[in-house]
């Protein structure tokens, strides 16, 4: 069985990294172990990608259509099992996790120079936790990983983070932790509420997704439980009133931390909405859809305006994530197949473009020791290939045709237009904002008169390869998105089916 290994590789790899450092400090060994485990993870995911058959599962029955499963008894008293399962949606996310895991290891090769082993322990365990979130379909297990991955992320931000505007990374890390943990507990209460509801109806304790999905819930209770899930995911996504942790956490995290945060941690929230919030509470979610989409719209504009006002380059990119995730939220709650497929593409594409931009800001910081855009300017001629890459990623982020981001946004807007035309019209106006802040970013950092004549260290081979491969992926996704769409088709079909059971909502 491959599923438990997908999970174990990062955890074991992380422990090895740490032990190596304790036995023999100051070696590059932990980096290589970490890189190896990430490559292994990616290879296994790609193997599953090639060997599985994800596109044809159009038959939507009462049992979910898993490609492979793994189940062990765990806590019998509550009917909790160690239940992992894989379908197209989880596979895409895990492949993405593996890819960005490699990026994160490679981009911290020079940046992290103290406590290397312990750093990689934390990095690997974040990845392990995320893989767990994407694989778990027992709600207890899901929550287990959901909370567990916060701890290593906390360490990454608190210990290897940077000061920003006089704020210590520790306070940013604590803010991140408290936001996500408290909202996570709300989700735990919702899960328990759902389980006890199921228990009173059937007399059986179960935390299994497939079983709980059948529990009919109506009335106030379904609203309360649904909101418990929604708030937990909304904090992580983030949705606007709950986004307070994000700019700080991103700005103060080390590059690898930002890449992971923007690339995969935010995506766990969208995954959670698709996998759990919608199928478990279809009717309530539909009733809630207008509110969720409004929040998405607010996010698009608020995030854009916020990004525009930033002087710290990483904060700008972080705020632009809020805006991009607004599109994702609209896509998810519009519930058409086209929009849902767009959501998947948008997530993957945003992961690449945000990772690229964060890596570039990390490289700028290594060279200039500042992230303040007011102290940059005129860098275009002084940095070799780096500004060119920056331009490409900025174009991707603003949704230029030819990049995956364009396809994602286009599919979301196109798919949602049938259902909620006015929301789409307003959201499209938000694209203008993204053009504005993206161009401002380019303008402030790279254009204008150079401050000094000297050239700054150019990209070395490692940095060049890293950026180039990310760029290639972004463009490949834009030119041939069908690779991803084929895999997610079955899973999205099922989400749409569950979401659209009520006839009032033609999908």
């Amino acid at each position, binding site marked *: 069985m491959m599923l438990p290994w997908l999970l174990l590789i990062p955890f074991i790899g992380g422990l090895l990294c740490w032990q190596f450092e304790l036995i023999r400090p100051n070696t590059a060994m932990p980096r290589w172990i970490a890189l190896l485990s990430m490559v292994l993870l990616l290879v296994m995911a790609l193997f599953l990608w090639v060997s599985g058959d994800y596109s044809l599962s159009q038959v939507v029955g009462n049992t979910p259509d898993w490609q492979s499963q793994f189940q062990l008894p765990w806590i019998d*008293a509550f009917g909790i099992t160690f239940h992992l399962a894989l379908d197209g949606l989880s596979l895409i996310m895990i492949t993405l996790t593996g890819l960005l895991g490699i990026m994160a290891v490679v981009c911290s090769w020079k940046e992290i120079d103290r406590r290397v082993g312990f750093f990689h322990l934390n990095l690997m365990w974040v990845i392990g936790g995320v893989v767990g979130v994407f694989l778990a379909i027992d709600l207890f297990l899901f929550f287990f990983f959901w*909370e*567990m991955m916060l701890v290593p992320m906390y360490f990454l931000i608190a*210990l290897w983070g940077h000061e920003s505007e006089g704020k210590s990374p520790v306070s940013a*890390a604590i803010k991140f932790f408290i936001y996500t*943990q*408290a909202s996570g507990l709300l989700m*735990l209460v919702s899960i*328990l509420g759902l389980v*006890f509801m199921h228990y009173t109806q059937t007399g059986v304790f179960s935390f299994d997704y497939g079983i709980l999905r059948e529990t009919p819930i109506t009335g106030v209770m379904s609203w309360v439980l649904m909101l418990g899930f929604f708030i937990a995911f909304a904090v992580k996504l983030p949705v606007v009133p709950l986004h307070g942790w994000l700019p700080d956490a991103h700005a103060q995290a080390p590059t690898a931390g930002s890449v992971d945060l923007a690339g995969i941690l935010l995506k766990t929230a969208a995954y959670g909405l698709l996998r759990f919030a919608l199928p478990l509470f279809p009717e309530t979610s539909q009733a809630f859809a207008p509110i969720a989409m409004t929040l998405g719209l607010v996010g698009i504009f608020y995030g854009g305006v916020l990004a525009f006002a930033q002087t710290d380059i990483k904060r700008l990119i972080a705020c632009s994530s809020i805006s991009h995730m607004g599109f994702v939220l609209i896509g998810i709650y519009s519930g058409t197949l086209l929009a849902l497929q767009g959501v998947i593409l948008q997530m993957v594409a945003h992961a690449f473009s945000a990772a690229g931009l964060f890596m570039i800001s990390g490289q700028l910081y290594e060279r200039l020791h500042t992230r303040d855009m007011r102290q940059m300017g005129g860098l275009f001629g002084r940095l070799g290939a780096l500004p060119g890459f920056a331009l490409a990623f900025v174009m991707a982020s603003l949704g230029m045709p030819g990049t995956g981001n364009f396809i994602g946004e286009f599919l979301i807007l196109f798919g949602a237009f049938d259902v909620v035309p006015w929301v789409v019209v307003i959201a499209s106006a938000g694209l203008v904002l993204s053009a504005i802040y993206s161009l401002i970013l380019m303008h402030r950092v790279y254009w204008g008169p150079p401050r000094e004549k000297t050239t700054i260290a150019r990209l070395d081979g490692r940095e060049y390869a890293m950026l180039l491969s990310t760029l290639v992926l972004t463009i490949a996704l834009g030119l041939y998105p069908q690779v991803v769409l084929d895999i997610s088709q079955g899973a999205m079909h099922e989400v749409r089916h569950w979401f659209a059971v009520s006839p009032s909502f033609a999908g």
Partner: protein
Amino acid sequence: MNLTLSHLIALLPLLIVCVTVIVVMLGIAWRRHHVVTASLTTIGLNAALVSLLAVLTVTPIRVSPLLLVDNYAVLYMALILIAGLASTTLAHAYLEGFDDQKEEFYMLLGCSVLGGLTMVASDHMLSLFFGLELLSVPLYGMAAYAYRTRLSLESGIKYMVLSAAASAFLLFGMALLYAESGSLAFADLGARLTEGGGHASWLLMGIGMMVIAMAFKLSLVPFHLWTADVYEGAPAPVTAFLATVSKIAVFALLMRLFMSAPVTDIASLHTIVAIIAFLSMMVGNLMALRQDNIKRLMGYSSIGHLGYLLTVVVASDDLALLTTGIYLITYVATTLATFGVIALVSSPWQGSDVASLKFYRGLFWRRPYLAAVMTVMMLSLAGIPMTAGFIGKFYVLATGVEAQLWWLVAGVIIGSALSLYYYLRVMVMLYLHPTEEEQYDASSDWGQRAGGIMVILLALAVLVLGIYPQPMIMLVSSAILG
């Protein structure tokens, strides 16, 4: 009533601890020897622990009207003995540098354990009071053991005064209940009370006073004022003992009282307990936020934790019994290991404990495994998955949701969010860059000594039970059903 062999077997743990205390006392009178005394105590407590296996063959059994030895009692006896053993191992390393008589400490500890054992088996007001006093009185001496330091003496005296006040409440409450029901046995009491006919207000007052006394011992708001000072002043191994044994014994007894004497019928009492629980969660966690002394911080955090646990008293159903056992096991393991780390860093005794948070800065880079233990404990106290504390919190939330105590569930969530702030602060302190200030460390061979091994075992237990809690759940549920 005739005393048969099975009665003797049921009393075996109590007898063994009694004999241990007497042997230790005579040993001290004959010749003082620290290592021998500590070893004798350890052997005695271990023997008592093993004897519980024999006890299991005769349970449930009533030994005189005073004691009921059932699986429930055996479970908490085991927990008390383990906590006692852990405190003994910590005390051994700690007292090595102590510049006064070291040996009497173990005698006091043995007496106190005996009191705890009596309490969890008691089924009668008399044995309750007897056990509680036997538990508390040696604790005054233990808290003030380093009586030449002002803080320790102060802590002993504070604990004594407040305990005496609590005992007075307890006795008065018992007297009122006796006046109404004419019986001191829990079961009888419950039966008479449900027959009705008594004056409801007297009953409420009687039970209310008993609850107040217990709340003193459990340091629940508004009877918590002694906690931080006593936790801070008492020597670290004593604090470990105080924070575990006395809480286990009193809480196990409180649950038994609530389950066997159906005070459940008095709705207002439940409201009062719920208010106490909510206030404890809030006040404990809020007060802990600004602490720079890790022992004080743990004191306030214990208030919050007991507040969470009090949710089960309000629920008072079968799941609540299970939750009590699980939460106490996880809490005790976590608390013991936390104070274990503090005691190890403070060992051998040099005049006062290393409790200020700044001394722990950068501990990870000097003593990685010790700091890792502390990290796991902080995560467990905060209730993060992969640690036993999460299972405990999960059960408390499950109990709350099942009994639909939404206010208390909200309290647990808010309390946890608050508590994260200070647990994380302690945790990150271990990893920050060490400063140039004076450093305190556990001795470099801490891992090879009894206290160190005990702390590492507890940390492993916390991790294993967090990942695979099934054995613990089976154990506790068999103790409840049996």
